[in-house]
């Protein structure tokens, strides 16, 4: 069955290193979201794309985070340089969402990337 996939599932790195997380949305979905989840802050929206175009990245620290969708089957979230406070689980979610009344807002989440920055 169709699922959102994310790689890697776990990543341990040292402060200052670059981290790239990848997401493959469900085929046919037009909207992709990146979230970060921590115990303290819960789920936070970092950025999202509609039809590969970035719509909002106001949730991301711009100086170190970047998100792209090089094609319809791949979304990336990059952190450079990484810091210990970036340690969290990063989720990608996708959905088929339009502005129309009949649209569903349902987002399907990937398994997440658990990032630990030492």
């Amino acid at each position, binding site marked *: 069955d169709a699922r959102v996939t994310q790689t890697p599932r776990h990543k341990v790195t040292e402060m200052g290193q670059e981290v790239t997380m990848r997401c493959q949305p469900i085929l046919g979905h037009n*909207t992709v*979201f990146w979230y970060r989840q921590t115990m303290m802050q*819960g*789920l936070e*929206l970092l950025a*999202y794309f*509609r039809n590969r175009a970035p*719509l*909002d990245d106001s949730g991301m620290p711009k100086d170190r985070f970047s998100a792209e969708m090089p094609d319809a089957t791949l979304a990336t979230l990059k952190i450079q340089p990484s810091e210990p406070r970036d340690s969290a689980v990063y*989720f990608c979610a996708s959905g088929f*969402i339009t*502005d129309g009344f009949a*649209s*569903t*807002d*349902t*987002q*399907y*989440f*990937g*398994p*997440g990337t658990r990032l630990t920055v030492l």
Partner: protein
Amino acid sequence: EDKVVQSPLSLVVHEGDTVTLNCSYEVTNFRSLLWYKQEKKAPTFLFMLTSSGIEKKSGRLSSILDKKELSSILNITATQTGDSAIYLCAVGLPGGGNKLTFGTGTQLKVEL
């Protein structure tokens, strides 16, 4: 600032009990309210509500939206240990991609 508040923050019940989880919201524009269940992994979708007063049901779970009170409840009857999870409420906002604003969740533990 848009806000979604869930209560209680955590709850411990015994198998067979019925539980009611609450979600209230303060948003500038409302489009939909969604419930998700999160066990140890990613959130999984339960319900989407857009109209007041219409109950959605799936097995032992049901949910209803009250737009006048800006709130929703999620009911679980005859709870089982497999219902133990964090239940997340999210509000969908119109325009520009329909992003979701999430509450912090209610942690439910069902004991034998």
